[in-house]
């Protein structure tokens, strides 16, 4: 048995392999195992229906947020259309499930692949555009996809939406939140594992090179455009996969939730979580979903205590106000996001009580 690894007092990496390790110490690996154990064996049994619903939503959104972080945080291509891609995935799964009666296990990855294709189409402008021009192009993509979802009535049923039959895997009915929890989080674990490892491969390092300096990347022999398209495809695949899970979880979907606001929420998640950090995407998702749940509870509560003041209309917008404020405060005071906060907290405990 090899020796256990602990934190050295500095950076003593001697090989590239050492630099690329996911777990710097055996302690990190252990805490990951404990985390997985808690997630799968404890959390579903100690939470009530409502908390479980929130956790499931966090799991679904986190998959899409990881995809967006691969695109924005690692490849440096800003996309304002992630919410629409999420919607494409949801609709693809819904249409496959109802019109082609695909089973769950085929419909979800197929929806991811269809969305990856759509994402590649809307990533095409990245051949010529970068920075804010690309950002505006994806904004246009968002509006065009929204329009198609509403207007292509023969396929998407327009504003009425589609109802999806309950999914089954190997004869197990997925209508139950607790069963679906396992489906979501097994998918989440696989997708997060893939993302973390993708960054360590040549593709991931090419993405980072393109983000840092695309001219230098081209000079080093990275074909920039195919890699940008690949990044769009991967990120949309994550969005579509998450959207498909969302469609099955929600049972019926309409075009309404997949608007620009959702795209903005996704970007807010990865900015608040930390750009270029996979755990950061998850932290950000937890933060945003919890924040909007808490805010809607507060507005509901305030509406109940002051119904006579006509509070119903006047208090609800405060939710948006706080949401916007949270984004601004994070960008100004902690631009590297919650991942950085977490790193600072950890490193102050690292050599405790003998820290320097």
């Amino acid at each position: 048995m090899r020796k256990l690894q602990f934190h050295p007092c500095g950076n003593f990496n001697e090989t590239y392999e050492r630099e690329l390790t996911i777990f710097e110490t055996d302690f990190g690996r252990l805490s990951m195992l404990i985390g997985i154990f808690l997630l799968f064996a404890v959390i579903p049994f100690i939470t009530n229906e409502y908390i479980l619903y929130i956790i499931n939503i966090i799991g679904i959104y986190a998959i899409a947020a990881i995809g967006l972080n691969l695109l924005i945080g690692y490849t440096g291509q800003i996309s304002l259309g992630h919410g629409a891609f999420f919607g494409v995935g949801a609709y693809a799964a819904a249409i496959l499930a109802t019109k082609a009666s695909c089973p769950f296990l085929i419909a979800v990855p197929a929806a991811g692949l269809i969305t990856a294709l759509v994402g590649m189409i809307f990533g095409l402008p990245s051949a010529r555009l970068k920075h804010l021009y690309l950002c505006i192009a994806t904004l246009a993509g968002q509006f065009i996809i929204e329009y198609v979802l509403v207007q292509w009535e023969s396929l998407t049923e327009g504003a009425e939406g589609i109802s999806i039959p309950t999914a089954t895997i190997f004869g197990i009915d997925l209508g139950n939140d607790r069963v679906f929890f396992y489906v979501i989080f097994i998918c989440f674990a696989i997708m997060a594992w893939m993302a973390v490892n993708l960054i360590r491969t040549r593709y991931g390092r090419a993405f980072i090179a393109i983000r840092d300096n695309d001219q230098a990347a081209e000079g080093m022999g990275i074909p920039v455009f195919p890699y940008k398209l690949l990044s769009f495809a991967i990120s949309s695949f994550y969005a579509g996969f998450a959207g498909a899970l969302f469609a099955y979880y929600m049972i019926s979907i309409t075009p309404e939730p997949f608007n620009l606001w959702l795209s903005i929420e996704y970007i807010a998640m990865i900015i608040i979580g930390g750009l270029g950090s996979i755990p950061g995407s998850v932290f950000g998702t937890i933060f945003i979903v919890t924040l909007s749940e808490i805010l809607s509870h507060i507005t509901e509560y305030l509406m109940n205590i002051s119904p006579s003041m006509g509070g119903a209309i006047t208090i609800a917008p405060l939710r948006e106000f706080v949401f916007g404020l949270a984004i601004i405060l994070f960008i100004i005071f902690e631009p590297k996001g919650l991942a950085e906060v977490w790193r600072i907290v950890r490193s102050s405990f690292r050599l405790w009580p003998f820290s320097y």
Partner: protein
Amino acid sequence: MEFFFQILINGLSLGFLYALAALGFVMIFKSSSVLNFAHGELMAIGAFLFLVLSAWAKLPIWLAFFLALAGSFSLGFIIERFFLRPLIGEALIEVIMLTVGLAIMFKGLMLFVFGGDIHSYPEFLPQALTLHWGAVEVPGVNVATFIVGLVFLGLFGFFFKYSSQGIYMRSVADNQPAAMALGVHVRRVFAMSWAIAALVCAMSGIVIGIINGINVHEVSAIGLKVFPVVILGGLDSIGGAILGGLIIGLLETFTGGYISTGLREVVPYIVLIIILMIKPYGLFGLVEIERV
């Protein structure tokens, strides 16, 4: 044929609104290269300020107009000082998300204070402004808008061409380090450009309010329509913003009138993608040549 002319007039007046809205946007972009997503909200704030001063406080119209412009001017200063200045030199996405956050915040605040209903100003325009042209009628508000817009365009033209502040702003837009080396106070120029842009926003917001009534959701939707307009015209060209606004306005009303009303809302964005693919710097934008 009457239908055609009516659509043409509607398109031109809508296009003029877009052009006015795009003006402030181009001004911010030109001097500080910030893509302002809070544009529609700034317009709405100006419009509501005018509403409060003219309809609620019952000030004379001209005083209310100038006070609303002055209020927006100082708001622009405040935004730059407290929100944008800490981000000078940060990554693009953070600046963009900051303006998005500002947009959400302002929108929430305005919905909180004014609600989501349509508000309208008291009637103050003289009837004589309405033009009749055969069977086609041009409402007085549009004529007034056109006049106000032209006056302001002229003023800004002179401001940029001859005033020292305007020359500083153009120099910063052209080459920031060189302007700094020649003693231009770059931060003050940024603050100034945000203030002036907020003023222009307020003006276009007021004009929109006079024509359509003010509704937070509608005005902020116009703020997003600015993107196709400025991309079509070129992100840093004022003349391009005006022409782009007219083209997009005409395109929208003609699509709405002859093809389908549903398509009307997305046609600017379809044009946007096409323009970006074939001529990314727009009709009059400055081409940054960069070869890889």
